[in-house]
């Protein structure tokens, strides 16, 4: 078995896959004891929204800029600062380069390490 070992936490994906297969077989046997059969293409397979009218697919699908809204609201200051920093102007990309050269000059000459 191909085992990735650090001496204190060996990892082998083959054992993991075997465990996954065993659990899947158990889950399959549990599921077989459940309810059998449903009628396809009747109201049993349609979306149910507590009796409300279901909007069509184009309006139902949440668009990408609305996903994770809460996360972005929470980190609004961080994201505003970051989006402002990523301007897209080519001159700013080289300004960052000069800033890093200046910081390395400070570390080399003034602080004196390296």
């Amino acid at each position, binding site marked *: 078995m191909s085992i990735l070992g650090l001496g204190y936490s060996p990892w082998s994906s083959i054992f993991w896959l075997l465990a996954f297969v065993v659990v899947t077989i158990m889950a399959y046997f549990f599921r077989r004891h459940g309810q059998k059969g449903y009628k396809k293409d009747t109201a049993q397979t349609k979306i149910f929204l507590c009796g409300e009218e279901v909007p069509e697919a184009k309006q139902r699908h949440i668009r990408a800029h609305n996903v994770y809204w809460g996360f972005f609201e929470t980190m609004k200051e961080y994201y505003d600062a970051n989006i402002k920093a990523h301007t897209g102007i080519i001159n700013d990309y080289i300004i960052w*380069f000069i800033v*890093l050269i200046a910081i390395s000059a400070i570390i080399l000459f003034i602080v004196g390490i390296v």
Partner: protein
Amino acid sequence: MANLITHSPILIIAIPLLAAFLTPLIDRVSKKARDILVIASLALAEFLVIILARDIYPNGLHIYTLGASSPDLTIPENYIVPVRIILEVDSMSIFMAIITATVSLAAAIYSLSFMKEETGQNRFYTLLLLLAAGMFGMELTGDLFNLFVFLEIASIAGAALTAFRTRFADAAEGGFKYIVVSSVAALMVLFAIGILYAQYNLLNIGALAHVMQYTMLDKIALALLVIAFMMKLAGVPLHMWCPDTYSVAPASITIMLVAASYACLYALFRTCFTLYGVCLNLVTVGWIVIIFGVLSMFIGVTMAVFQTDIKRLMAYHCISQTGYMLLGIGVGLAVLNQPEALSTYGIAAMDGGIFHIINNALYKGLLFLTAGALFQRTGTRDLNKMGGLAHKMKWTTIFYIIGALSISGIPPSNGFASKLLIYESVYRFNPILAIVAMITSILTLASFTKAFYSAFMGAELPEYQEVKEVPKSMIAGMAILAAGIIFFSLFPGLVVDRLAHPATAALISQGVYINGIMGGGG
């Protein structure tokens, strides 16, 4: 066969170069012949890389002196320093060459269908072969100025390929940003090479490492080299060109640009470990690399969750995964002269970082190719407009799931194996770094789930009713990378022992590299 192995370093560079110059000629005869030439030359380069790798891992490094009477005559009679261009291939170089060869072959096979409607395809394939030759040259050479020349070849070819589809307005902008950033970085590398030559009169990496005294001018050259290579491999804060360029390039070219940035990562490690080696203040330089890595990881992934353009999202992830590699190898660099820490967790951190390079090339390549497939069929990269595509594009969905699980580090994928190595060893170095790495992994999973939901899940949308699956050659290109991912996921121990660990050992042993040059020949 033994002759082929001896001459393979130069053949690996020369065959794509020669095929690049033959492509416009053969294209006049027939288009099919041109396609066969491109695929055959890249397949031959991959074959040569594999047989050279099988010779290097048992037998040690491989020297090839250009223009000498025998390939290992590095120092001719009555000379005390090497004077010719010398290709020095050790386990780390051939590891990167394996990545380049596989990614180039997958990109070429994918391009056969992806670029079918474009005009000027002979120029496209010429530039693709030149980009591959440039990357091979960067990885196999042992000479600093040769590294600069191949760096420029790869940059120019990559920028021209990025702006290839001139009918898109943002393609020219992405290509322009790439060539400006690459030019500035390469000119700073040239300046640093000039400083080193002025002091020691040598251009060869092994010979320079042999005579290096760590004067103030050498420190200035080190700073210039590190910052210039950091700009080329898109580490924060010099990463802003990366999403612009990777999102507008054709999908197969994006994966080759990713491989080119890993060739620059290799050049950075050659500089830190082999060119300067033990005369550095290892803790400081190691911590600088670690700080770049942590910044790249965190800023890359938080900006990635925000994006709505699928290839821009994946490009920001590229930046954050590069941070993982910098973190792992930076930890190894920081403990390089403490033998107890090195053997406990330093070598494991470097194994994880290096294993992550090949994992990332595979799964990032696969993800970019699926994004290209989505673009080909829907005509847009905007996630706000896509939805419900899993009903029609089943193979693309499967490959996307494989890639997304790998990049997020979900067991049993190879991404999990390399991230586990990095977490375990970096935790023993400093726990906070490992915690930042784990948070990054969670946010990576979050952003790929967002992209999966937006593009693939949901009910079928009316505007995508006629969308079909992508052509067979694109599926073949994706399948090559997916097969690599599945193989690496099933046998991670095998890959680390046979591929990543010899590369780590080669990076750490500066003496073996120097001996190959100074001790060889007449």
